């Protein structure tokens, strides 16, 4: 059961990484969309795509937190007593992102929209960086089992920074392929071009950053490097192939295929991380079984997960279908 719940956690991380990541990534393009006049239409597209879904996508984060602290309290505490700096920044980033987005949507004057938009966009870049750095710190074994690790060096390590940069870039990439599909559906050729250029740019940058990954990990986190090479490699191969194909699909203008492949490429990296770390929760020192709550709690989490699959799963599908069909 412990492994099952850890698996649930990984699935939630992947879903948050993909859907929450795509939402955060729009901030990068919003931030760089230009002045009020030039950026008006891209921002309207972002607004339209994000509006109905971002809160539901955000809920994966809540789900991750509650499963982690209930199922693996020791790991949760180890993380929060070590990585409180990036987590604190991320928490504030989440507040500013959500509020800025909601306020901009209803504000009337350009000046107010500008302030709210800047807040939304900046925090949308900052937050995924922090989450990526947190992941890097955990993966590279810088969170001790007993917590209270180095508050700065843990996440500002090479692996942490790599995680942060990769997170920002992949979010931007996912956002661009999602927005491209939305612009295409709305029949807006100009915006479709606009998003496609950004998808290509971020795909190339993400690929470049990912290629530096092996060197960074080899030097900075040899044990993680070793495990990724021996256990996690199929996922990384899938990711690389899917990423390359997605790039080709984007170039050829196959938006829906590009979106699906892009999602696979990002999800595969996260799955690879999880598989590579198994059977450990933190680095290669805290085992899943050693951090787990008593069996009754784990069974309850299993039941909660089933209930979520039955209740939340279909509801999410309804929401996405309505959004994609332009009914919302």
């Amino acid at each position: 059961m412990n492994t099952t719940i850890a698996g649930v956690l990984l699935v939630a991380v992947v879903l948050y990484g993909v859907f929450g990541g795509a939402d955060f990534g729009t901030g990068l393009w919003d931030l760089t969309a230009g002045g009020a006049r030039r950026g008006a239409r891209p921002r309207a597209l972002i607004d339209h795509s994000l509006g109905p879904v971002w809160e539901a996508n955000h809920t994966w984060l809540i789900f991750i937190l509650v499963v982690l602290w209930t199922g693996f309290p020791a790991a949760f505490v180890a993380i929060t007593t070590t990585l409180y700096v990036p987590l604190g920044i991320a928490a504030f980033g989440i507040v500013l992102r959500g509020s800025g987005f909601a306020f901009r949507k209803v504000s009337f004057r350009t000046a107010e929209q500008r302030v709210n938009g800047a807040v939304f966009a900046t925090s949308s870049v900052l937050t995924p960086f922090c989450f990526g750095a947190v992941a890097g710190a955990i993966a590279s074994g810088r969170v001790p089992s007993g917590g209270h690790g180095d508050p700065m060096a843990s996440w500002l390590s090479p692996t942490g920074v790599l995680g942060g940069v990769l997170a920002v870039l992949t979010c931007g990439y996912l956002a661009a392929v999602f927005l491209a599909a939305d612009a295409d559906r709305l029949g807006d050729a100009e915006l479709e071009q606009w998003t496609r250029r950004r998808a290509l740019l971020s795909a190339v940058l993400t690929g470049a950053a990912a290629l530096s990954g092996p060197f960074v990990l080899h030097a900075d986190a040899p044990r993680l490097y070793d495990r990724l090479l021996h256990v996690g490699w199929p996922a990384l191969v899938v990711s690389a192939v899917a990423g390359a194909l997605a790039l080709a699909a984007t170039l050829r203008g196959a938006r829906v295929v590009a979106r699906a492949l892009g999602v696979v490429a990002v999800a595969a990296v996260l799955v690879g991380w999880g598989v590579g770390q198994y059977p450990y929760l933190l680095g290669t020192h805290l085992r899943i079984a050693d951090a787990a709550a008593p069996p009754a709690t784990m069974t309850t989490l299993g039941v909660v997960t089933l209930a979520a699959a039955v209740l939340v799963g279909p509801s999410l599908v309804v929401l996405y279908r309505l959004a994609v069909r332009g009914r919302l």
Partner: protein
Amino acid sequence: MPLAAPAAAGWLIASASEPSQLLPAREQMAFTLGFHIILVPFGVAFTFITMIANYRALRHDDAEALLLAQRWSKVAAVLFAVGAVSGTVLSFEMGLLWPGLMGRFGAAYGIPFAVEGIFFFLEAIFVAIYIYGWDRLPPWPHFWSGLPVVLSGVGGTFSVVAANSWMNAPSGITLRDGKIVDVDVWRVFFNDAFWYEALHMLLAAYVVAGFAVAGVYAVGMLRGRRDRYHRMGLLVPLTVGAVAIPLQIVMGDVIAREVFKSEPAKFAAIEGLSRTSTHVPEVLGGVFRDGELRYGLSIPDGASLLSGFSSDTRIRGLQDIPPAVRPTDRLVTIVHLSFDVMVGTGFLLLGLALWFAWSWWRTRAADPGRWFLRAVAVSGAVAVIALETGWIVTEVGRQPWTVSGLLLTRDAVQRSGNVWPLFGGAIAIYAGVTVGAWYALRALRRRWAAGADSSTPYAPDDDPVPASTR
């Protein structure tokens, strides 16, 4: 926000040579929770109020009711967003501020939050469908998409309050060497304090949302906009609030006796009672100093009569608590005064509800007087004060414990790093969010007052570019 009270409490605890993080951690928790709790009623109860107007619009083909419902859902979208993200901060704070709590008791205390996760998910999904589906979904299916929001509001409230009530009345765990080795999930969730706290908070949500929304239209009517639209905007939420508040008062009376039975230390602080005795007076107001409640207005035998229906009812005093875990004088004063303010504001709202019922019976509230409108205009703020003081009673009233009898707050607090910058950041950011929300809601109001309901997204003021996406 009544921050002075928890601030004083935190200062006092810190001054008694506690861990240095305790003061900022408690301040931050009080501040962020106090902020979030104001938004909760709108997530929980506003959709229900909106659905009443929506039902009327569909059933009676009422264009003004439809306009109200649509505008309310736009306001709800803004408030729900801020509520969702400020609630997320609280999740982070569980680990950032209280690792001692999560590490030791996460396996039990976390369970209600896991259940809450499902309700929050459903709420977020159906809020989006309801808010964004006005124009393109068929009217009745759209109406029914609001129902899961109302139901998951109830479920979410019950789950979060289950976690809180477990801190007041922990049960369902087996401890060995201070570690949880077994959990009885049912008894964790449905702990002894669960039902009364959960129903109390649910009713509070409807009271706050009802009076606060009504207040907006009372202000409009005071400014001379006495059309049918404003009257309906006043009557629908005011009716919800006026139905909820008498239930809340009865509920509160029952709860006070439950607290008397199951949380004697909190009850002693509420009454400001030092020595265990019978014939205990009910003291209104006052300051607790040197083991005595001074300067209050005393009603002979009142507390004994209220808690056991007899002046011979014995109430346990604070001196029964071992000195090491006895709340300080200042904490007792805070709990006692907060309780008085909560009950007092509750009765003020009850008075307003009775006034409303009376004027409805007399004239069907055809022309509510200016004083009535003024009272409704401030009733939302009064309801928020009741809500905040109620939470101060239950939270400060549990001190020095985080989990009653099992975990002291000073053992729960974060020991790494420095919480002060985090707290400072929280104050600055939440202040900014408050200002932003104010401007955003004002922008909506101005646009609606001008009769414009569709927005022009992100066009420069002088050159409106037509929305490309709709």
